[in-house]
């Protein structure tokens, strides 16, 4: 186990790498810091950053991945958000869409509420849970080189992938996307589905 926080990855380095040359990648960002991280990498109509709906990010990813099998879907969320609906990993493993990757930024903390420890701080192994659910490509990521591998997996979409990325519990400046859910929904649908989405 890594205990030296200086050896931990920095969350925005991780997200910038995951989104490098993002092309037509579709991104769901979990509420809180993962939302700000994805937004810091650049606001984009193909982002659906959550401001609430805690526990829903990975299942939004599933519904989207099933609806858009030719596109690649990347869910970037936090350990607290993932833990809130950990059963989602069972539901997703059964469906196993090839085009879905779930990247959990694991700072072992509830960051927005005072940095209280989450169960992962006590050794709960999300990657092992994902493996046990049946997601065969599931790993703990501790280096930028492994982040690059994960980025390639997400962009190639050769099978459902899950990663628990150990990151520094640093508190960074908020970088916010639009907060209006109608704007976020409409621009995402218009980008993915074309202008027809505005009439349906």
């Amino acid at each position, binding site marked *: 186990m890594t205990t030296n926080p200086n050896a931990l990855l920095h969350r925005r380095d991780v997200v910038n790498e995951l989104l490098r040359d993002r092309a037509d990648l579709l991104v769901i960002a979990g509420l809180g810091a993962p939302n700000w991280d994805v937004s810091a990498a650049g606001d984009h109509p193909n982002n659906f950053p959550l401001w609430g709906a805690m526990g829903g990010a990975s299942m939004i990813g599933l519904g989207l991945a099933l609806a858009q099998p030719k596109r690649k879907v990347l869910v970037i969320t936090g350990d607290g958000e993932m833990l809130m609906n950990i*059963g989602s990993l069972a539901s997703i493993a059964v469906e196993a869409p090839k085009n879905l990757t779930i990247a959990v930024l694991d700072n072992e903390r509830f960051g927005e509420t005072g940095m209280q420890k989450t169960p992962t701080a006590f050794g709960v192994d999300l990657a092992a849970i994902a493996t046990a659910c049946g997601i065969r490509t599931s790993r703990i990521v501790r280096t930028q080189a492994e982040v690059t591998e994960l980025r390639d997996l997400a962009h190639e979409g050769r099978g459902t992938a899950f990663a628990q990325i150990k990151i520094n519990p640093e508190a960074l400046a908020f970088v916010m996307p639009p907060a209006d859910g109608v704007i976020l929904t409409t621009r995402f649908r218009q980008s993915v589905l074309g202008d027809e989405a505005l009439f349906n």
Partner: protein
Amino acid sequence: MAEAAKSRGEAPAALPTWPDEIYRVLKDAGIRQVAMVPDAGHSRLIRSFEADPETRVVTLTTEEEGVAMLAGAWLGGERGVLLLQSSGVGNCINMLSLPVICHMPLLMIVTMRGDWGEFNPWQIPMGQGTRPSLEAMGVIVNKVDEPDLVASAVQGAAHLAFNTWKPVAVLLGQHVLGAKNFKELARK
């Protein structure tokens, strides 16, 4: 529908026709994703969707997963339906923020417990709380107690949801489903 008509002709008391009718209504509404936690009242409809290569049936570990999943489906241009029992409505409450604040359609078909004819006292709190909880979250609710009205209720709810981007729930009452009596079963 042929099967439904057949069941009407040959065994009128055995098989209700509304599950086949709402399968047809949901197909006509363009439903492609079915998210569900099973309930006995939905079993026939679930079998119809499972036999249909055009629809994807996803079994959830808790109903709120389905609210999120169908939001993702909508973002990707597909329509879905959430099938659940009234007890599962309680599991959805905060996740309903998502379709409400984003103006996304959500079609829920809820089989009721804790209502007319209920034998299990533990079903009462959520059964009686189903409608007020949904309405408190901004979901439009339509309850049906007559088997003959189920199909039109679901059709109307689908139109309402997908044409006005609202979460809509149809509650199927125990008049429609038939109330179980486990105490009688236990005596056998």
